[in-house]
């Protein structure tokens, strides 16, 4: 009775990044008559997934492109195949746009591009096991580099930073999600007003929370320099933190530095403290962890240091909000986060509950970050009950409309009797529109806060764990 038609194809030597291919798969999969579409690099994982789905995949390797489409009939399959070619043509046009400046074959290494393009910075986001080569090219070319890639071995980070120190260049990352340099938002970056605050951050979402709250309060930033989550470990020794502090101290536009740091290894803490004391620019340090100020409190400290008033942080309440103590108390509390630091902050404030960081390396091997692809987190939301606490992070490179898929799932959860609380990290200028996202989530029944700490406190009180 099945009239399913399969098309399986391996294209040797064709490469596109996983996010681009995921979009192609999505575009094909959403066509009428198409039941399944896998367009991915033929890694062991992807080949296995396609085979499990019943596709007869010929031998292929990670440098080959795998196309596997299943449709209701031959006609639908043909149309999907034509759409595939249109999608690839669009990707090729996109690549050509970036390579047009030289008018020749697009170079395949950072080293080769650096020879023909007078760059000030390199942004590396290839899979982690391959990031070292590109970052090393940047360092050897004397260019600062932001390594967005995660899963980069720590010994490679140490080597890169050692080499970078010799060259006097800054390495941001690995696993640096956010930076703003000279007004350019790199990675996940919010649209921030320009201003006097320079940020050095070991945490991308931590920096986004602080800078977005500063923006709500009318304070702008000069630069946001990420250093990567492991920079203050004893292995890495704070190399990038020290370099970033020095750079901001020398920057005439920066009047106040906010240092967002994980609790450093003791010997590193000493080094960083000495460096901070030696700076001409005042520094507000936000240490992440139990017993420390939360990010909101640290932002308020920075505002006071600037002599600015601390506003009431924006929040939105649904017409019929869940009240504390509603239903049997205590209720379960589930934190479903895309930002690691926000997740940890919320867990500390809530005191208990089960918290998952879907941006953790364990969830992102061979898969885009949840800020880009919400699928895995949405699945968890569909199962959740009790009180559910989520973060939604706006800005460049993030999901262009997170509420579109999230709001219906929130409405279903609220319909099941769950209470949903959202920490919405973004600014009024972000492409997704802070107000529009908030309204959409509130209409679905969520309570929305721009302060993650406030969201966590509210969620805890709903769960009957008021603090």
């Amino acid at each position, binding site marked *: 009775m099945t009239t399913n038609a399969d098309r399986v194809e391996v294209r040797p030597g064709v490469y596109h990044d996983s996010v681009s291919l995921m979009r192609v798969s999505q575009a094909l999969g959403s066509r009428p008559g198409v039941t399944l579409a896998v367009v991915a690099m033929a890694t062991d994982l992807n080949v296995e997934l396609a085979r499990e789905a019943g596709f007869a995949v010929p031998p292929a390797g990670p440098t080959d492109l795998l196309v596997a489409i299943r449709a209701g009939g031959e006609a639908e399959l043909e149309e999907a195949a034509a759409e595939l070619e249109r999608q690839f043509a669009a990707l090729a046009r996109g690549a050509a746009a970036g390579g047009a400046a030289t008018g020749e074959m697009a170079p395949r290494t950072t080293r080769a591009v650096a020879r023909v393009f007078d760059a000030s910075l390199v942004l590396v986001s290839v899979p982690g096991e*391959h990031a070292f080569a590109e970052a090393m090219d940047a360092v050897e070319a004397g260019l600062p580099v932001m390594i967005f890639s995660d899963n980069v071995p720590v010994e490679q980070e140490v080597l890169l930073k050692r080499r970078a120190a010799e060259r006097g260049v800054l390495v941001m990352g690995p696993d640096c999600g956010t930076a703003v340099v000279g007004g*350019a938002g790199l990675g996940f970056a919010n649209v921030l007003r320009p201003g006097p605050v320079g940020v050095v951050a070991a945490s991308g979402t931590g920096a986004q929370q602080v800078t977005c709250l500063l923006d709500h309060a009318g304070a702008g930033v000069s630069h946001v320099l990420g250093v990567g989550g492991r920079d203050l470990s004893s292995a890495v020794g704070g190399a990038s933190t020290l370099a970033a502090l020095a750079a901001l101290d020398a920057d005439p536009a920066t009047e106040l530095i906010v240092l967002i740091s994980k609790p450093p290894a003791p010997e590193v803490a000493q080094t960083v403290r000495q460096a901070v004391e030696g700076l001409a620019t005042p520094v507000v340090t936000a240490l992440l962890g139990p017993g420390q100020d939360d990010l909101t409190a640290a932002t308020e400290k920075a505002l006071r240091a600037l002599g600015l008033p601390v506003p009431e942080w924006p929040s939105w309440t649904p017409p019929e909000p869940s009240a504390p103590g509603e239903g049997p108390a205590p209720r379960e509390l589930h934190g479903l986060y895309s930002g690691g630091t926000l997740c940890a902050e919320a867990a500390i404030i809530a005191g208990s509950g089960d918290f998952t960081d879907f941006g953790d390396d364990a969830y992102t091997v061979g898969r885009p970050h949840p800020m880009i692809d919400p699928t895995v987190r949405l699945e968890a939301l569909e199962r959740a009950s009790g009180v559910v606490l989520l973060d939604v992070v706006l800005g460049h490179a993030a999901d262009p409309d997170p509420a579109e898929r999230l709001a219906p799932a929130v409405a279903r959860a609220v319909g099941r009797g769950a209470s949903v609380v959202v920490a919405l990290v973004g600014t009024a200028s972000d492409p997704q529109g802070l107000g529009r996202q908030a309204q959409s989530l509130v209409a679905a029944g969520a309570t929305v806060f721009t302060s993650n700490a406030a969201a966590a406190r509210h969620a805890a009180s709903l769960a009957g764990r008021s603090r």
Partner: protein
Amino acid sequence: MTMSMLQGEPRVITVGASVLAESLDRQAVPRLGVEWRPPLPGTSQALAKVLADPRREAANRTAAGRLTSARPRLVAARPAREVLGLPARTFLHAGPPIEWERASGPMRGALAGAAIFEGLAANAEEAERLLASGGVRLDSCHHHRTVGPMAGVVSPSMWMFEVADDEYGGTAYCSLNEGLGKVLRYGAYGQEVIERLRWMGEVLGPVLAAALELSGPIDLRSLIAQALQMGDELHNRNRAATSLFVREIAPSIVDASPRHAADVLRFVNGNDHFFLNAGMAAGKVCADAARDVPGSSMVVAMARNGTDFGIQVSGLGDRWFTGPAGVPDGLYLGAYGPQDANPDIGDSTITETTGLGGFAMAASPAIVRFVGGDVSDAVAATRSMYEITLAEHPAYQIPGLGFRGTPTGIDVALVARTGLLPVVNTGIAGRVAGTGQVGAGLVTPPAEAFIAALTALGAH
């Protein structure tokens, strides 16, 4: 220190996820994207180790610097017996070492021809029996500061060009070119082949030697640079270089031997490839100057014996890393076709190793009709080689690319990262011993040779 990064307009190189690049485009930040792709399968770990080697960058700068700054000069012509100290019953051959059992048709044909030429056998059958029984010691030319085109067989009585490097003091050798068609280097061993070799030993070699003594050394670096600007790529097209060579040496040939001058000049002039062998010795002396730099991932030899394609790497001493030699893709003479072609053979890839040949194809629009394709393919081939090389040659320039230096100094790490293999221009030998040349074309080296070298470098 990082002040410059925070000042001025950001200009970004993006490598990786297109979503991050698009976001910069939406912000109107100037950027250029890397056309990144995963490295050759199985090379990630070795690549990380090689790239982490603190010696690599300086070592490669040294190796590429030596390769491009050596100053080869043609100084003499002498018999192999004399200059290489080749004992009787020792023959050299092209490519990595190979024994008779694994040798291909043209290699066997050339070895047999050399045995007949040396008087060790009366005919091909006797010669093959002698060679099969191990009666002649075989070794790779590259082990003796020597290179040889195609089969590259060198026997003690053959005459050699001697090329000296004034910069680093090295010396290298290559046999004299026999011409095209039925010739020993393509595996032919008939009567006319042997007779030509005799004449080359009795007349051509001694006359060239006497002429070079009169003329003094000929600057090959400058001659090659000029030939590139006259449309040669110095591997499959040597017409300009040969003409320049004749112009340099002709008066001395006449002075040295009025009796034989006309014959010698007619022979040299009648063979567009005559210069190839001098150019190869020049390449060898430059590449040898770049050997043995600890930590360097630069290729110092690419060579084929008709069965294996082998490479040597500066930081890895004299070790060979091999893979199966491929069959060139090209055009065939007369009625010959791909079924007649032997796998890739010869040391002439020393030209590509030193930034010439396939790497300089953009300089040689005339070659593309010979090896198939059109001019834009030649330009694309040269451009792609900049991706895998460490330097641009300061003297070897390509007028059509705005006098950009040719891509020089292949880095095995860059080959693995880009998946781009060296572009090689080559002649095609017939697979049956005794046939000779059947065509010419392009060949792709086996990736495994480069992967094996990278892996060894990573384990070093």
